[in-house]
């Protein structure tokens, strides 16, 4: 057996007449950074949502570390070790940066039904929260309110929250989308720094970033995986070139 952390077996999803996920089988190896690329509307986010549990496939199976999770709820998958950042920033907008991290820490501790002791000035939780922020290098902005953060900073916070549960697999849906060039460089560095700690499935449009980070790339076109392989193999694949550049017809 290979040491695959995530396995998709002929996963299919239709929205009415539109086939969003067309018989996708995919293997993500433990510890790798795997990029999922494809033109707009190829079904990348739909696929990620099925892996995370926001959507349920019509047929097929999803296995995390050999365990069938096809019908497991989002929160249970998070406990099993899948973290996710969303395409549109998804953090707790009414809270400060540290408070976001503290909620993540509470959740990670599993001690959630505590009704009396104040949470936001609990020294252990504050330390835990700061450690979560430190992982992506944003502990210096812990006191700032999320609504005051720049877009790129929010994306970093979201990555920190996705990592807070110490996931075995992190799904990053366009983490660089809308971020400035400096943020992109910083974010790329942060993600590169996670290599080995956890497995990452990355959706990204910025090809420079993809080729810098990914060890393997899968190409999704109209819901189907048309190619999967090392960056070199992908850049020389004629099918991929056609999909991206268009055929001559």
């Amino acid at each position, binding site marked *: 057996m290979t040491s695959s952390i995530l396995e998709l077996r002929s996963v299919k999803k239709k929205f009415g007449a539109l086939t969003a996920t067309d018989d996708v089988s995919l293997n993500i190896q433990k510890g790798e950074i795997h990029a999922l690329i494809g033109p707009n509307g190829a079904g990348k986010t739909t696929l990620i949502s099925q892996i995370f549990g926001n959507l349920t496939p019509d047929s097929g199976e999803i296995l995390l570390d050999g365990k069938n999770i096809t019908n497991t709820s989002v*929160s249970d998958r*998070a406990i099993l070790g899948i973290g996710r950042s969303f395409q549109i920033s998804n953090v*707790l907008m009414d809270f*400060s940066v540290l408070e976001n991290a503290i909620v993540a820490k509470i959740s990670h501790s599993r001690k959630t*039904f*505590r009704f009396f002791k104040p*949470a*936001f000035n609990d020294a252990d939780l504050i330390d835990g929260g700061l450690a979560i922020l430190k992982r992506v290098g944003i502990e210096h902005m812990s006191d700032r309110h999320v609504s005051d953060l720049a877009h790129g900073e929010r994306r970093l916070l979201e990555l920190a929250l996705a990592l807070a*549960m110490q996931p075995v697999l992190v799904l990053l849906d366009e983490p660089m989308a809308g971020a400035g060039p400096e943020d992109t460089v910083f974010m790329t560095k942060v993600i590169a720094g996670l290599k080995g700690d956890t497995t990452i499935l990355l959706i990204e449009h910025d090809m420079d970033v993809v080729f810098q980070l990914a060890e393997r790339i899968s190409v999704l076109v109209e819901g189907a995986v048309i190619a999967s392989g090392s960056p070199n193999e992908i850049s020389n694949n004629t099918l991929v070139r056609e999909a991206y550049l268009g055929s001559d017809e």
Partner: protein
Amino acid sequence: MILDLLKKFTTLWVILFLLALFPIFTAAFDLPFWNDVVMRIMLLGMAAMGLNIVFGFGGMVSFGHAAFMGIGAYCAGISQYYGMDNGWYQLLISVITCGILGLVIGFLALRTSGIYFIMITLAFAQMLYFFFVSLEQFGGDDGLIMDRSDFIFIDLYEPLRLYYLIFLTLVFVSIVLMLLIRSRFGVILQAIKSNENRVEAMGLNPLKFKITGYVISAVICGVSGCLFASWQEFVSPDIMHWTRSGDLMIIIILGGLTYVAGPLVGAIVFLLLEELLPDLLHVVFPSIAENWMIIFGPLLIAVVLFGKGGLMGVVGNRFTRPAARKDQ
């Protein structure tokens, strides 16, 4: 910890302090009627504080919480009808009944959200309302006349005993809320309001927390209703009319829904205006005195429009932060 609570929730403590001293004021100026008004304020304020756990802190717009007040009141009324006068038992029955009912209604209603949740909670409340309207044995539409409950050590017919029983219950509920809102559970509830998807992605099942919050708020409304029955010496389906659910929501929004003290402030202003505005108008514009809502409505709209965060927001700090940290 007590000191910490004193510091964080100044407004609430000041109000409670003034409420404790209020009977001295009414005695000094010989205004016993106002004790009655203030008891009503405390009871509705307590119910609104309970509702605010789901409404303000959990972001669930429940349009049926008067039903739990009604259930609490009927628990007292029906107990007495069958000869059980003990107020402590009546309170216990109210708490258990409202807890179970809150669990069932919450379990069903919280599967929906937004407008559907508003409608389904209203539907449950209306169901209960008409259930009691049709219960001829307990007076149906006409209600059930009852005596004040017998709280053993506290004879509610002695002057001010009822006032201080309600007051101390309000203090207890306030302390529970102050702790609850800042606790891990309270923080998660507010996180769910802020972004349910993120909380789910953190591995928590939002439904569990929402149902728990719903049950706690139902129980608090039930306690308020149980005491309301003694205050009114009468129980009728009127107590759970849908307009009262609306009043509770207006009280919360008026006072400030992200503050523990908000509903109490709202209840004070709402019920005082209800009491004073007609008299005042009678002096100034006698012709519209009966329609005092003409003034009241725009006043409410002004607070909602210009005072983001209700009266507490206008008076207190200007930007909204989670109540867990906010100075209240």
